[in-house]
């Protein structure tokens, strides 16, 4: 077991962290780990979403399946999700919503009595579990009391009514996108930009400006004092090669050197609101670990050991 050289110690540096947005650097690892993390965040971090709808009365303009589909896509706060059971694995019940381990029941009863259109929104959903409620999208910063609006489900005219019971269950994004906690998970290779200062100085200010403007994103800037070109925001660079092409067109190839660092990633994570982004990343790591454990412990791996010898041990993190 001298494979310790394969092991690396990835580092994470958090740049920005909000409930629904996170940006962090992941260093000293490779694309496979970064991508595994991304994929797990999208598809395998569990959340809770409405999965079964029993409609009692629906005289709205939208039909039952339509409303059921919309209900399913409403994000529910899912801090509990990690500790809940999948209803298919739940021994205590048959997943009918009565069981506290695997499901949450919701009720919706709205009837429009006025001449104005009534917006039925996620605010009208009443949960049996106060920890699992539709995500509140109102901005906490703007504390004005004007009704914070939820996700609109349907609009009702006078006399129309919607009455239903819905059961939310735990699930993962792989089964249906409604269980995916991530709105956006993406990463990029960290660019490393080296300006060839000597060559740069051969350019006139006009040329410099032209060169700087050739990038569709604002990566470079000219220092108003020294009139030198500097990198202001390397990450704004979208690997579009425009500046390289421009440099070549100006007859100055090698004006700038841009390398994508293979071991350093900048992650951007946006959450649907179901889980806080911090939790989302942690859960993802947790699930990734579980998956690796599953691989390690599975009999296939033991068999593989015989075949591949040491390699199998590395796969198990040895």
């Amino acid at each position: 077991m001298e494979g310790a050289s394969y092991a690396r110690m990835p580092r994470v540096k958090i740049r920005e962290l909000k409930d629904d947005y996170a940006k962090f650097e992941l260093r000293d690892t490779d694309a496979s780990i970064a991508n595994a993390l991304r994929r797990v965040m999208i598809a395998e971090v569990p959340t809770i979403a409405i999965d079964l709808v029993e409609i009692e009365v629906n005289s709205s303009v939208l039909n039952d399946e339509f409303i059921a589909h919309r209900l399913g896509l409403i994000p529910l706060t899912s801090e509990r999700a990690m500790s809940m059971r999948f209803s298919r694995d739940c021994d205590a019940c048959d997943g009918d919503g009565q069981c506290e381990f695997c499901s949450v029941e919701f009720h919706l009863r709205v009837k429009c009595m006025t001449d104005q259109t009534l917006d039925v929104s996620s605010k009208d959903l009443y949960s049996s579990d106060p920890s699992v409620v539709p995500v509140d999208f109102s901005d906490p910063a703007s504390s004005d009391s004007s009704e914070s609006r939820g996700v609109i489900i349907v609009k009702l005219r006078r006399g129309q009514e919607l009455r239903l019971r819905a059961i939310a269950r735990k699930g993962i994004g792989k089964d249906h996108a409604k269980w995916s906690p991530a709105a956006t998970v993406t990463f990029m290779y960290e660019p490393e930009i080296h300006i060839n200062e000597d060559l740069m100085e051969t350019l006139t200010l006009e040329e410099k400006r032209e060169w700087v403007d050739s990038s569709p994103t604002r990566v470079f800037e000219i220092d108003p004092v020294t009139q030198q070109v500097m990198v202001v925001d390397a990450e704004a660079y979208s690997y579009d090669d425009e500046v390289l092409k421009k440099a070549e067109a100006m007859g100055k190839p090698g004006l700038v050197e841009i390398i994508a660092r293979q071991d350093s990633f900048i992650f951007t994570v946006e959450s649907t609101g179901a889980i806080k982004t911090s939790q989302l990343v942690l859960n993802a790591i947790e699930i990734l670990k579980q998956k690796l454990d599953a691989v390690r412990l599975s009999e296939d791996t033991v068999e593989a050991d015989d075949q591949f010898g040491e390699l199998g041990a590395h796969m198990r993190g040895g």
Partner: protein
Amino acid sequence: MVLNHDPSQQPMNGNGGNKVPDDSGFDQRILTAPVKSAVDKFQLLPEFLKVRGLVKQHLDSFNFFVKTEIKKIVRANNLIRASRHPHIYLRFLNVKIRKPSIVDESVTDEVTPQTCRLSDQTYAAPICVDVEYTHGSRDDPRLHRRLNVEIGRMPIMLRSCCCVLYGRDEAELAKLGECPLDPGGYFVIKGTEKVILIQEQLSKNRIIIETDKKGNIAASVTSSTEKIKTKTVIVVENEKFWLHLNQFPKKVPLMVVMKAMGMESDQEVTQMVGRDPRYSYLLLASFEECRKCNVYTQEQALEYLDKMVKRSMYSSNSAEKESRAFSVLRDVFLANVPVDGDNFRTKCIYVAVMMRRIMDAILNKDAMDDKDYVGNKRLELSGQLVSLLFEDLFKSMTTEVKNLTDKMLDKPDKAKNFDISTLLNRTQNIITLGLERTLSTGNFEIKRFRMERKGMTQVLQRLSFIGAMGHMTRVSPQFEKSRKVSGPRALQPSQWGMLCPCDTPEGEACGLVKNLALMTHVTTDEEEAPLISMCYSLGVEDLELLSAEELHTPDSFLVILNGLILGKHRKPLRFANAIRKLRRVGKIGEFVSVFVHNKQHCVYLASDGGRVCRPLVIADKGVSRIKEHHMKELMDGVRTFDDFLRDGLLEYLDVNEENNTLIALYEGDATPETTHIEIEPFTILGVIAGLIPYPHHNQSPRNTYQCAMGKQAMGNIAFNQLRRNDSLLYLLVYPQRPLLTTKTIELVGYDKLGAGQNATVAVMSYSGYDIEDAIVMNKASLDRGFGRCIVMKKYSAVIQKHSNDTSDRILRPNRAADTAGRMRVLDDDGIAAPGEILKPFDIYINKQSPIDTRTPKASAANLPDSAYRSNAQSFKGHGGEVVDRVVLCSDKDKNMCIKFLIRHTRRPELGDKFSSRHGQKGVCGTIVPQEDFPFSEKGICPDLIMNPHGFPSRMTVGKMIELLGGKAGVSCGRFHYGSAFGERSGHADKVEAISETLVSKGFSYSGKDFIYSGITGCPLQAYIFMGPIYYQKLKHMVLDKMHARGSGPRVMLTRQPTEGRARNGGLRVGEMERDCLIAYGASMLIYERLMLSSDPFEVQVCTACGLLGYYNHKLKTGICSYCKNGDKISTMKLPYACKLMIQELQSMNIVPRLKLADA
């Protein structure tokens, strides 16, 4: 051919502006004119469509029929007089069409079209007449008057002036259950929406020079008057002129006909044709032919022709009065030319003009007419067709009334107190049923004109909103589709702006079925008499006053109105300009056209119906009459489209008159010769082609493909779509408005009733499941509702009343019985409850029918349960469908009818068909989870991936620009435009501008993105062209098509498996498949496929005689019935079809014998 406006001409009204004295040496108007800034005339278009509407042609023609034509028809046949008692009569004084209504057990209710659709009724209004008639005994009748007597019911075109929807605003329409965006223009017959297609025909009453089958040059005239329709053909054969007319079985020498019409002098004929010696030379042979027939005088000619006339049935009674040839010449020969008494001079001149045109064609082949030229075509619209039909039915009604009158008067008891007007009530059905039947079957049968046409009406396509629109602008061809000529199918230069160059079907009807362009208007008939008198007062010299010699003097032009020669004019240009001026100030109809034909030395005026025309901006010496302030007034709502017409800023031009103009595309292009300026270039396209963004960047056939596919796209059908009861309805769950729109889209309302979704498309190859135009789709997008659709299907059940007063019944389901599982969805009333989810074989109506429906029963109402058998209808579907609505109504036989609307929500699956708006269709090849999809560092992940091989050969550059424009649109928050040819006028965004927007939003100018693979996390090796494209889901879905069978039903006759999915049929191993297997040598497989899996049959064959025997079950042996024994019987297997053939041959006295050898 350009015709300069008279230099002295000034605009007739003050609005023309810029009046400059002409005495300066140069044209001051051009020099002093401000630098041309193109006035944006686009705003005229919505205004035009507001006034005229998209299906205004139909509405106009129907309104014309209802307001004018029907009165004419009734006035022309207004008297019914008893034949033996002429003092007993009935006279129609007035006719009108009242409000649409239905009569239900003598209670009349006003109806809306929506109620008619839902309850399978005809949306029709009573036709009421005021009558004056005799009343009382046969010998001493008194005169009476009755008002508003109903003579029948007329189906009403929606949104026409008789319709309850006429002039309603949006809110009122909504109250009536009608979609405000629905254009109308169709009928509701027995609950189905029927469109009368626009029929394309060759113009009537015009001389057409063509070559006949033998290559001879002929001039033909199809005359059409109220009384008769005839075809006259003058042909040159063996250098002589002949006449073909149906009344003459053989061709007749034309000069004899001329003589018969009183032109006895050959010299006069020559003069009439023209004194050019070349003409006289060509006429020579014909004169000689006449001499050969020994015809010199009118009498001789008539005598000669009398012999030639076809003997008809009633020859006896007309022969005595006058020569039959004479009446044929008067009434049939060139029937459109009126004959005043027995003065045939006008007809002679007409014939002379025909001869002259033929001789022109002989001398110069250019003078031939092009049958495919749009100016030689007329479009027959619903109003004209309904009017023909009504006239026929009205006449048969009056004859029926007359016959009944005669019958009644012959019976003394009835004749005592005889009221002729009561007969009108009895004959109502002739008109009502006649109209209804014709409109619902589409088979027009008009005996009088021997017209028999099939497929004139069609059920309005309601698959998509745009499909319905396209259906209403469709023009169906005159020829049958099988003809293998390319001429009529080719794109005609003259259809510019009138007929859409893109929108035509593929395949056999290609190029024959056409569609109107956006601004096309089809004229209706206009009164001729005032025009004629106006022409004379404008200096047209009457024919009557001209000698034959004077007719064709070189500097004078013949003036021809609607094919009728009025006279000649010495200053044709001045005459034409005068008429144009009068038209522009509104003194004569706006659709009257003047066309100076320089080659034929004729001025053609037209006021007849069915001409296609379009509005154009008038320009004086290349300066548009529409100025900035006009458009401002239009925007402010002070000025309407009609004001533009009235003020002489715009005018309608038909195809012929366009030949006298020079039309500039844009104001900037105008030269001093320019007479008109286009309003907007994209109006060259029709409604459907107008949906394509940047069509001018695409390869032309791609636009045509899109025109066919746009009609199959799912989306919203109408605002009232959920209240409709269509038998099949495809809806999209989340339809969107295209990010890249065109002006046409906004004009027709496609942005409100879209049929597609904006999908983020990555153009790259992925997974190999995207070959041959297949599309890779993102599973998460599908989860979130992309391409989700609702399919609604109608099932119905009728509670039949039987002849013995028994009737079907619906039973409350027995919840305890063993069928209770299948009865799960039923309510207590025995009918499926709305909202229930259906499984295959669920019963949706628990109906029972009496076993005996023939023999009369005493207690028909309460039969015992044993007298009924179950007739429950069970659901055959996929499972997961939901009962959407249940409608109870009574059908036409007053039986209760129960309609079930079954809804099925489907998400896209493998094999569903999608297409962009550029004729690029493809099926879903695979569905991939989101995490495997590529992503950009901005976090963008495409909805679908399209293979780049779709581009090089298709050359749909428009799609690429759509992607760019869409991407710029989403990033800057403005809908971008891509109207056809719109870059110059600002109705299409230029690629440069789009690229600038992209760059300013941090994208590459090229629309390509740097993308990471979702599977490995590594960057892709190439930049990927990615952005939103509007995608349509087409109605072809795998769920409706997939089919397989193990064992199943067989055809009775051959015992082979049935054919087709609907009958759960087998998949055929055809001859070609069989050939492959033979070549391969897979004999056992062939044996298994062709016999064992098909129709194996065991037969007894007598090896002695070779005939088939039978198996005797008692004796347990085979017996040959020919040899009368079972000695040499062998048993063998045979396809049943083979046994059948042997027996069928035997029945025809052919004896097939089987010779068996040991195997």
